[in-house]
């Protein structure tokens, strides 16, 4: 066994001639030196049907003077090793609480007449991390908001961790969730290790201590976001306010292809009725789908993504039901039931190609939903997060940014072909749903029926 110490020599001698061939080396060099071409080729071959990302940034404010220092940021995770924590199968109470939160947030953050889009998943994960730093009534408000059906923060940590694992359990990088905590290295601020540890354990949150006076920190935060959104968003902060002591960031990145991609001749231009009674011509993608949805105010369809794990859900309010009143009628339970009661009927579906981005400060919606103390200096109790010798800690902003692009395969199908998609003699059990006026859409996890993204499309921009 002493030979093991010579193992490297033994391997190298016995496999002396084993190396990558010159040809392989050459192709490798050629491949990496033509990055753009490879990328484009891959793109046009594989085709990306949908890309969506979201970001939520929670900004904490404290009051004190700054300590000027030259250091930029330290990775605090060197001292913090994420521990393996228990996971649990997602309980009915958790799913109900989360669906309720998701729909309530959507209703409260929806802007009339605009293309709204939020990712409840991103928001509850960021709030979950934040809640771990709170105590007393502040914590109680978080628990009531996120775990309406008697869940406490420990339950939520376990469930959020389990849900994240379930959602990101794919072979590819196509659903990616990232969390990080950035805080000022000011000497007055004494961050609690337990807070960082819990967030590392349950949220895989990275922690960075940085000089908030340095422009470089702004760059680093922005680069972290850019990296985790696959370059879809490159800037989230322009400057750091003098009283900001901490950023808590979550990003969700989603990219998938349709199970049945649209082909060129299934794309046609047609009219989309806007809310102001005028209409505009946009490109519609037509297909046959096999899951039909219906409630008393709307009907819709489910279009599956390639791996069968997620689905795109579209809900078109019935004639006479405005998008505003439909959004207002949504509830967590209603949405879950709608999904559970899908029927296997053929739908001839028309979906406009669209891109949208949305940007909202969630403080007001969250206040309306019952989160109050955490925004008020003097009332907010974040004693489990940090000791700040120079003043109180409270949340000053909750920025939520989203982006979505839905299309066929990223190819421009400008040439319209005269192909009649609708066929002849449609029998009555089949449905014809063209999303040609404002509608609600969501990207849903098929396992839990939870909406990971949900939005309204009132004015499609191709």
């Amino acid at each position, binding site marked *: *066994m002493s030979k093991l110490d010579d193992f490297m020599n033994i*391997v*190298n*001698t016995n*496999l*002396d*001639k084993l190396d990558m061939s010159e040809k392989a080396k050459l192709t490798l060099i050629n491949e990496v030196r033509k990055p753009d071409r490879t990328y484009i080729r891959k793109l046009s071959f594989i085709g990306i049907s949908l890309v969506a990302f979201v970001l939520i940034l929670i900004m904490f404010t404290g009051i004190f003077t700054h300590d000027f220092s030259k250091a930029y940021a330290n990775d605090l995770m060197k001292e913090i090793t994420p521990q393996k924590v228990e996971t649990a199968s997602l309980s009915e109470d958790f799913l109900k609480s989360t669906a309720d939160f998701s729909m309530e947030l959507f209703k409260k953050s929806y802007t009339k007449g605009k293309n709204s889009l939020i990712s409840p998943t991103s928001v509850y994960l960021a709030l979950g991390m934040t809640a771990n730093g709170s105590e007393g009534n502040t914590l109680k408000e978080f628990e009531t908001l996120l775990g309406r059906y008697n869940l406490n923060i420990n339950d939520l940590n376990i469930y959020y961790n389990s849900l994240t694992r379930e959602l990101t359990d794919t072979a590819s990088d196509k659903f990616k969730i990232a969390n990080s905590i950035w805080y000022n290295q000011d000497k007055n601020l004494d961050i609690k290790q337990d807070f960082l540890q819990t967030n590392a354990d349950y949220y895989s949150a990275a922690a960075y201590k940085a000089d908030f006076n340095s422009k470089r920190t702004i760059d*680093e935060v922005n680069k972290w976001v850019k990296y985790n959104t696959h370059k879809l968003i490159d800037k989230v902060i322009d400057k750091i306010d003098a009283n900001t002591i901490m950023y808590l960031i979550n990003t969700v990145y989603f990219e998938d292809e349709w199970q049945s991609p649209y082909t060129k001749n299934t794309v046609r231009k047609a009219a989309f009725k806007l809310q102001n009674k005028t209409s505009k011509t946009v490109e519609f993608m037509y297909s046959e789908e096999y899951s039909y949805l219906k409630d008393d105010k709307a009907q819709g369809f489910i279009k599956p993504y390639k791996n069968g794990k997620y689905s795109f859900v579209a809900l078109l309010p019935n004639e006479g039901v405005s998008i505003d009143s439909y959004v207002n009628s949504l509830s967590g339970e209603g949405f879950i039931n709608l999904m559970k009661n899908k029927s296997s009927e053929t739908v001839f579906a028309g979906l406009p190609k669209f891109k949208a981005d949305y940007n909202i400060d969630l403080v007001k919606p969250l206040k309306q939903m019952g989160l109050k103390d955490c925004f008020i200096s003097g009332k907010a109790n974040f004693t489990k997060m940090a000791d700040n010798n120079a003043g109180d800690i409270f949340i000053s902003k909750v920025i939520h940014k989203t982006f979505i692009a839905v299309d066929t395969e990223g190819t421009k199908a400008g040439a319209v072909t005269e192909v009649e998609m609708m066929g002849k003699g449609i029998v009555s059990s089949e449905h014809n749903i063209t999303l040609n006026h404002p509608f609600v859409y969501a990207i849903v996890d098929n396992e839990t029926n939870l909406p990971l993204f949900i939005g309204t499309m009132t004015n499609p921009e191709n």
Partner: protein
Amino acid sequence: MFFTLITAQESKPDIDRLIAEYSKSLTRLCYLMLKDVQLSEEAAWEALYKAYKGYGKFRGGSSEKTWISKIAINVCKSYMRKPSYKEITSDYISLSYASEDEEAYEFRSEESLALLNAVYRLPIKYKQVILLRYYQQMGVSEIAKILKEKENTISVRIKRAHVMLKEKLKEDCL
């Protein structure tokens, strides 16, 4: 540390250097994992390609060699999971890759060949710790980081691998 990540992300490494430094050791590492010459070349190719493309993810917390070895190990594992990959049934290393250098004779003794064969017949989780520890010459803490395990677990695993190796070597002698 985070800042290294960012700096590294901006500057792409020199592919010629990566190939010169790692192509041999990666191909051999992959060969010991996969027992197949062609697959090991493909795996090493893919590992270097991924290392180049993902250089921004290299945090500098470990050495470059450690980081690239980790990528290679993961590539090998993904190959092994493919239905098309059937573990090569031959248990024995081909001598056709051995050095012809007379001075290297000691390392081509029957004993050393038996050791190589015993190593690559180990179950994967033991094989990878032995390869990382003795071929890539990494410390226990580095291996623990790569495999996301506790150091203690790795130490125990290496010890168990020693015992298993001894048993396999005994079997071979019989």
